[in-house]
């Protein structure tokens, strides 16, 4: 009743874990049965290993948090060689979030991830916490299209493009991704924010600014998902501040065909599974038979 297929990726539930918030999965295995998660999107992976940003990396904000991890990761080869094999024993699709600093790097990352065990690629053109690449790509339609094309050329895997909300017109970026061959779009990545320590007259974060996530951003995320879902034909994966099944249902009603849970994992490590169960309850209570019956339904009343 809640199984979905997004761009050819078969998921037992429409609830994925958002990149960067769930490690590669096993970190949370003590708390939640990974086999019950729709899909695990692993932390942003780059060609070379990265240490990430210096200094403090998270700060709490009203109903939200800022992070400036800066894409710390062991690099794609280490991922393929050491981490991916450990995921084989779980029955859950693994989607790799890839972050390149040039168009070629995106292509190269896609090529190196043509290995068993990878269910799809999420093209991260929207990381706010790195100087080059990342958000610089994500706000420009041509760059997004170029990155997606480079990935598309080098893989047969489903390609999802992860969009930045820090733009005037998210719909045109989504369309650019779709036109460039992306099989789905996911949104939102984090909003760029900042917080200042008034005692020390310093930014709280080592990188000065960071990405805002959590319940605070939900209204903005939901609005963007609604706008994009009306404008593109490909599936939309909605995220941004989802804490409860009710929040997830809002995204589905807005037009998302699946959702991802990020910050909520930190608060409740079982969030991804409990939210999926809550969606099922929601459907049962209303006598609905499949989650697809509510997707985009808010548009009937607008």
């Amino acid at each position, binding site marked *: 009743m809640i199984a979905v297929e997004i761009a050819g990726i078969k998921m037992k539930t429409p609830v994925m874990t958002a990149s*960067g*918030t*769930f*490690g590669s999965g096993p*970190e*949370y295995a*003590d*708390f939640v049965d990974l086999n019950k998660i729709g899909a695990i999107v692993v*932390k942003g992976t780059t060609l070379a290993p990265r*240490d*990430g940003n210096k200094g*403090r*990396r*998270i*700060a*709490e904000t*009203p*109903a*939200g*948090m800022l*992070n400036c*991890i800066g894409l*710390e990761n*062991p690099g794609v080869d280490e991922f393929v060689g050491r981490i991916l094999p450990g995921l084989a024993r779980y029955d859950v699709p693994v989607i790799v979030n890839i972050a390149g600093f040039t168009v070629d790097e995106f292509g190269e990352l896609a090529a190196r991830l043509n290995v068993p065990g990878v269910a799809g690629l999420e093209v991260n053109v929207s990381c706010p916490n790195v100087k080059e690449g990342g958000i610089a790509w994500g706000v420009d339609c041509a760059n997004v299209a170029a990155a997606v094309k480079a990935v598309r050329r080098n893989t047969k895997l489903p390609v999802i493009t992860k969009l930045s909300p820090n733009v005037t017109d998210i719909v045109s970026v989504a369309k650019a991704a779709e036109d460039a061959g992306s099989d789905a779009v996911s949104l939102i990545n984090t909003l760029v924010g900042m917080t200042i320590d008034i005692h020390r007259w310093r930014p709280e974060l080592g990188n000065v600014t960071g990405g805002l996530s*959590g*319940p*605070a951003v939900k209204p903005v995320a939901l609005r963007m998902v609604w706008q994009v879902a009306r404008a593109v034909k490909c599936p939309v994966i909605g995220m941004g501040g989802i*804490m409860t099944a009710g929040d997830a249902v809002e995204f589905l009603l807005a037009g998302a065909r699946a959702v991802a849970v990020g*910050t909520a*994992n*930190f*608060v*409740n*490590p*079982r969030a991804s599974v409990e939210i999926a169960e809550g969606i099922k309850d929601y459907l049962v209570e209303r006598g609905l038979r499949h989650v697809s019956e509510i997707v985009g339904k808010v548009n009937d009343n607008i």
Partner: protein
Amino acid sequence: MSKTVAQGIVIEHFSLAPMIKRLTLGAPAIARSARPGQFVHVRVGDSYHPLLRRPLSIAEVDREVGNITIIYRVVGQGTALLASLPPGEFVDCMGPLGNGFDMETERPLLVGGGMGLAPLLFLAKALCPKPATVLMGGRTKQELWWRNVFLGVCRSIHVTTDDGSLGRKGFTIDLLPELLENCEYDRIYACGPLRMMQGVAKLAKAQGIPCQISFEDHMACGVGACLSCTCAGTDGKRRKVCSDGPVFWAEEVLDLS
């Protein structure tokens, strides 16, 4: 599964000193598997504000009864909320998280400053009947209510204060060389400000005594998933304070040269 999310019930909650609280929670699953040096990741309320959990060291454990005790300083919004909970209320705790101290010691020396003494309390109790020597430092006498807490769970207590109002005037690392003179100890455990731990670890190295330290960092997930809390190891590899630590061998993460 040893790590779990438990609704700990507040058994006892009182002030040990101004702004310092001692909280005992009924949380049998956590109490059963907790080791000294580990922490619990605590949700301080149901609201989205504050949103994140707070990492707090396990300071005492009563395995039979199934209780864990936390000793914490009220510093901000989260700890203030926690401080308001009366007995009978529930506190959502994830734990026990992180690795613990290595317990292979016969003659341990524990060096702590400030709230760094909380995990050392659990360690001191767990080491008995091989009683530890404790060296504790604070700014003034008022900060060293910790002495009463450690009485009876250690061999002896050495004290320094910055202003000399109790014990030796100065820092723990000023007194430490004297304690190490007879090379009586086979293991040093340090927890407190980074500068203190750095100093302790250097002196330990000079004496050839293995030394463990406990790190702190801002944490979101507490389980190694978000990379909020990583630091560089001396081998060039990254470490996560929450899951590879918070306890490390000093030379693993500190440059002691």
